[in-house]
């Protein structure tokens, strides 16, 4: 069996929404280069809807695919829906990830939530129910000297 599902390979080979949004309404960055994964999400929000989303990722195939899938899942969605994105939903939409790669989907969820929090901070509003991730996505990051 191949390491990755067809879906993962498709999103890795042809990642959706790669790039940068100038003057983004919210930016979220998670991970660190030491661990080999960094994801950065840019949001354009209009009338409480994710009008546009872009990502940049330094990482393995599943990190790139998870970023791509996560952006697809929230694009065009109301902020209230985007807030509910879970790593599980990202992994399921990719037809699963190998166990040792699940942290890539966690990073994608965290990056999007961080970007939403950044948006809320910039607007001076509170997004009720948005729970920011605990920094536990990558066991190697936690407690490791950077």
């Amino acid at each position, binding site marked *: 069996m191949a390491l990755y599902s067809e879906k993962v390979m498709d999103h890795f080979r042809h990642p959706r929404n790669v790039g940068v949004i100038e003057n983004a309404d919210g930016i979220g960055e998670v991970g660190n280069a030491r661990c080999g994964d960094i994801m*950065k999400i840019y949001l354009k929000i209009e009338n409480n809807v994710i009008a546009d989303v872009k990502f940049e990722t330094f990482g393995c195939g599943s*990190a790139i695919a998870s970023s791509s899938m996560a952006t697809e899942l929230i694009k065009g969605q109301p902020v209230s829906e985007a807030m509910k994105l879970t790593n599980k939903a990202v992994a399921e939409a990719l037809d699963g990830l190998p166990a040792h790669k699940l942290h890539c989907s966690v990073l994608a969820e965290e990056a999007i939530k961080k970007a939403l929090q950044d948006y809320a901070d910039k607007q001076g509003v509170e997004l009720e129910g948005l729970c920011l991730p605990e920094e536990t996505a990558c066991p190697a990051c936690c407690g490791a000297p950077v």
Partner: protein
Amino acid sequence: MHVYLDNAATTKVSTAAFRAMEPYFTEQYGNPSSLYAFGQKAHEAITEARERIATLLHCEPREITFTSGGSEADTQAIRSAAQWGAKRGKRHIVSTKFEHHAVLHTLESLQKEGFTVTLIDVHEDGIVRPEEVAAAIQEDTCLVSVMTANNEIGTIQPVEEIGKICREKGVLFHTDAVQAVGHIPMDVKKQQIDFLSLSAHKFHGPKGVGALIARKDIPLLSIIEGGAQERGRRAGTENVPAIVGMAEALEEACRKLEENGQKMAALRDRLTQGLLQIPHSVLNGDAEKRLPGHVNVCFEGIEGESLLLLLDEKGICASSGSACTSGSLEPSHVLLAIGRPHEIAHGSLRLTLSEETTPQEIDYTVEAVTQVVQYLRGMSPVWRDLVNGKQPFVIQ
């Protein structure tokens, strides 16, 4: 185009080795331990293979123990030396930071059993300094284990000098020569090696077979218990076809060693030069003292697993020291040992040639790697920060 550039991982079985093995599957399939003539035919084949390998590596036939491969040979060598040392009250071992895990993990086990271990530095060029080996040897040192050539970066170690130091100091010397045998000249006597590990599938022999060469006056510890095969040093019915194939492959590799080495080194240098045209890339390990077919380069701002997957799409088989390719969260211990920071070690690419590699394949690979690195950098937030000056480049 299908380009196989992972010959340090494994090689294609040579036609000669394959042909030599064939009769031992369906015709001469007897058990070498059986008394009847049919079994003795198989026994003779093993004896002949042992003699051929002994001649090629300059040891005595009885100093060769056939194993399942390099990892088993490493484990048996180190455990035997440890037993030898323990009997003499010597429980200290000197090795290096960039040994294969078969060596490092065995040493970790021995530490739990009361041995102490000194892992010496391998420097930025990936070369062990003999004087540092000498300085690390203590009164109670029983063994020095230094690989002949590193499996990830291909650097060749001063084995003969280390062998001399160990002999003078009365310390056993083991070398993991898995990457070296069949690729560079090896002479167990001249290099004063007490234990040497080798693996057939690294020189166009079959997988699952290797050998431990051990000086005849050092008793070997049997790590697989059972019958009296290999004069009681390794139980289990011998893998007759594989042993025959290994001898055939080694003979061919040694016969063509110089010719193949020159050919591969020229292509290796062409590949290295091409890859180093990519901005912010660096060769890992000394440029000269390295195996003829070994290239290992780090590219700043990208991660190795995505690089490998995209090269696979282009038909290129390669490997990387990134954490994601190892199944662990740490990047290659070898790249860390030569001083590469974690974020740089994640972006490594190992390409290893064979004598069948063509200039066309090399040029195709340089072009493909250049494209893929550029593409991945285009979506990397790390690269963006480097280019925008938010972070300083590590590789100039």
